[in-house]
């Protein structure tokens, strides 16, 4: 109710008393303003409180939610459908037909919480019974010295796990583990490499590649988005097994220290088989050599096909001849000076066994008979600069781009200077060293009509385009010359009926670590292309220190060692690849005229 500013009773009273009635009005006005202020203040105070409450509640809600999120253990979204995407933490590896080369298996690791153990002494003794490599006393010491956590085994077999269960000590605990398994054992061991555990926790451990393609493509194999899709290699399991079998038999028969073979599709660069002996089991990878004096080749981990950088000997001769053909310097029938020995400055170039194929030899015969002197004269026609450029275009100056972690480390050994004597020695494969895989890639260029292919271990869908390094005619003529080597030259044991093998032998003395060459240690190589009329495959076989003792005299040349091994590989492997032998057409069923 509104109070009048000038209440009549008080005014009249004031007038009677002779006071100023305006004072009453002013007093009332002041009171009214005070009332209004009080009301307004109360109102605003309430609003402020409401605001405070709202904000406090909002912040409290957000804070509570955040602390709940921070404190909870992450869980899989339960209501969503879990697809087939995430099965294993590392993708499988298969061969080109989808057969498993590497997969994962669930197993368990064993660890202990010694403070929860009932009987540390008895447990240690029984664990040592189950795992003979564990020492009971050492284990007991670790269980009783007050620590709260001990790793015991990284991987358990189901039987071992059952035995540990039977101990029944509450301090023994199992952690799930995913373990890499190579079901084929030593097969393609150098390609697959191996794997081990990276960061380890109780609930899981990461599996990391330690060598080979497992390490080179580690990121791809561990990518969760691609873990359901296996990595498909270009290798073929049956072919790889056959190549390894034949190569191992050849290595044993020829008393070789090591051997390597590469079988490559010349059109696509896909490596169908890559073998290196001696080999190892990637499930149980041996430790690397620690002896300083040991050569890297002494370890079975050494991949001779990729890491083995050897002087490849006469297999190089075809490159000098192909380049001379390409440059128009010679034709296959040109007669070249091949009078041995050839004297160049203080050096003397000799033929094998001090023979002399001269005075003149056709270019085809230089390849067929493997004449060092003839090749040297051709190389001198080409000259050092052009020779280097050609070898570079064939990939001999760079490590091979194949998907193995070892590949970038295997750099070819190139002479620092390139005087004419190096031109001469390089033309027949001495003084410069490269891996068998380099040789395979270069021969593939010849077999592929003069176009380079990139060697790869991954399956490709079709032919690839590469750089042309020589004309198709040159490549054709080179293959024809290589065919002569098998038909009538140094590789006559390489003939496989129906498959028209063409190839070139190479025997190189092994260099000593101290300089110079060994008298009786050689590396034999046979580089083959087949079938010659329509080259599809390249095969390189290398034997380290072979010796053929089957005859009265010891033989160390490639024609007697690497060539028969390669021929047997082709004979066994070509049918597996569906390659039909080209035999004489069978006589048609025809009526033959006969007189009686």
């Amino acid at each position, binding site marked *: 109710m509104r109070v009048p500013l000038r209440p009549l009773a008080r005014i009249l009273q004031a007038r009677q008393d002779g006071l100023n009635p305006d004072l009453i009005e002013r007093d009332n006005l002041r009171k009214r303003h005070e009332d209004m202020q009080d009301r307004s203040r109360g109102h605003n105070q309430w609003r402020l409180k409401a605001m405070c409450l709202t904000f406090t509640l909002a912040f409290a809600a957000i804070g509570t939610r955040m602390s709940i999120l921070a404190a909870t253990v992450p869980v*899989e979204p*339960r*209501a969503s459908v*879990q697809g087939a995407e995430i*099965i*294993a933490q590392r993708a499988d590896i298969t061969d080109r037909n989808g*057969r*498993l080369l590497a*997969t*994962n*298996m*669930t197993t368990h690791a064993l660890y202990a919480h010694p403070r929860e153990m009932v009987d540390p002494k008895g447990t240690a003794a029984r664990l040592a019974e189950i795992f003979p490599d564990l020492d009971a006393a050492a284990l007991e010491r670790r269980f009783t010295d007050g620590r709260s956590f001990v790793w015991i085994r990284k991987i358990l077999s189901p039987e071992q796990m059952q035995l540990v269960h039977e101990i029944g000590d509450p301090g023994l605990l199992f952690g799930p583990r995913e373990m890499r*398994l190579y*079901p*084929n*054992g030593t*097969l393609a061991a150098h390609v697959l490499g191996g794997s081990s555990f990276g960061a380890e926790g109780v609930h899981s451990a990461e599996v990391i590649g330690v060598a080979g393609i497992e390490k080179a493509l580690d990121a791809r194999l561990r990518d969760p988005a691609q873990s359901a899709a296996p990595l498909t290699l270009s290798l073929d*399991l*049956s072919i790889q*097994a*056959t190549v390894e*079998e034949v190569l191992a038999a050849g290595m044993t028969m020829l008393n070789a220290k090591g051997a390597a073979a590469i079988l490559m599709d010349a059109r696509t660069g896909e490596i169908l088989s890559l073998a290196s002996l001696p080999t190892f089991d990637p499930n149980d990878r041996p430790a690397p050599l620690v002896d300083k004096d040991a050569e890297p080749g002494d370890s079975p981990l050494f991949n001779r096909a990729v890491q083995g950088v050897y002087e490849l000997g006469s297999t190089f001769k075809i490159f000098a001849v192909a380049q001379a053909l390409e440059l128009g310097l010679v034709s296959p029938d040109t007669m070249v000076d091949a009078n041995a020995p050839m004297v160049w400055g203080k050096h003397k170039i000799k033929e094998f066994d001090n023979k002399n194929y001269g005075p003149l030899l056709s270019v085809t015969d230089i390849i067929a008979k493997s004449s060092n002197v003839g090749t040297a004269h051709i190389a001198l026609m080409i000259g050092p600069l052009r020779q280097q450029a050609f070898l570079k275009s064939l990939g001999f100056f760079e490590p091979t781009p194949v998907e193995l972690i070892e590949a970038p480390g295997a750099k070819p050994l190139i002479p620092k200077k390139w005087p004419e004597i190096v031109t001469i020695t390089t033309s027949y494969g001495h003084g410069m060293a490269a891996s068998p895989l380099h040789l395979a890639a270069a021969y593939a260029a010849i077999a592929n009509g003069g176009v380079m292919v990139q060697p790869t271990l991954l399956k490709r869908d079709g032919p690839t385009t590469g750089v042309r390094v020589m004309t198709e005619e040159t490549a054709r003529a080179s293959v024809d010359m290589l065919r002569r080597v098998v038909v009538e030259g140094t590789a006559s044991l390489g003939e*496989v*009926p*129906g*498959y028209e093998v063409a190839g070139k032998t190479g025997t190189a003395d092994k260099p000593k670590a101290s300089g110079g060459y060994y008298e009786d240690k050689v590396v034999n190589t046979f580089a083959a292309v087949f079938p010659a009329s329509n080259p599809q495959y390249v095969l390189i076989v290398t034997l380290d220190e072979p010796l053929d003792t089957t005859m009265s005299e010891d033989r160390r040349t490639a024609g007697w060692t690497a060539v028969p091994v390669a021929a047997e590989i082709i*004979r*066994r492997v*070509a*049918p*597996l690849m569906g390659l*039909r*032998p080209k035999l004489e057409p*069978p006589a*048609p069923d025809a009526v033959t005229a006969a007189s009686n």
Partner: protein
Amino acid sequence: MRPFLSIVTFMALIALGFWAYRENYATQAALKEVDQLQQEIQSLREALSVQRAEWAYLNRPDRLRDLAAANFDRLGLMPMEPTQFGTAAAVAYPRPPMPDVSLTFDVQGTTAPPDLQDQ
């Protein structure tokens, strides 16, 4: 009117509460079942991968080679050879279908000499 509305509202509240209670439990049961099924799927996947690994292990070339050698008497398996490729010309044409021998025919004519009967 007013008490009637209050009673209806109260009943509706009870009904909704009952429905929400049931839904809550049904959801929890469904989630539990999903958990169980996913655990089952996971264990089946693991079993599948173990069996795939075992299949690959049992079919490894070394073992098959040894088995083929051990059972050579019965199976006679040899490595594939270039000579095993045949030619299309070597495959015989299918023989013309023989007449059904269960039916009887009246045949007239002369009997062919024995050496022509095979053709």
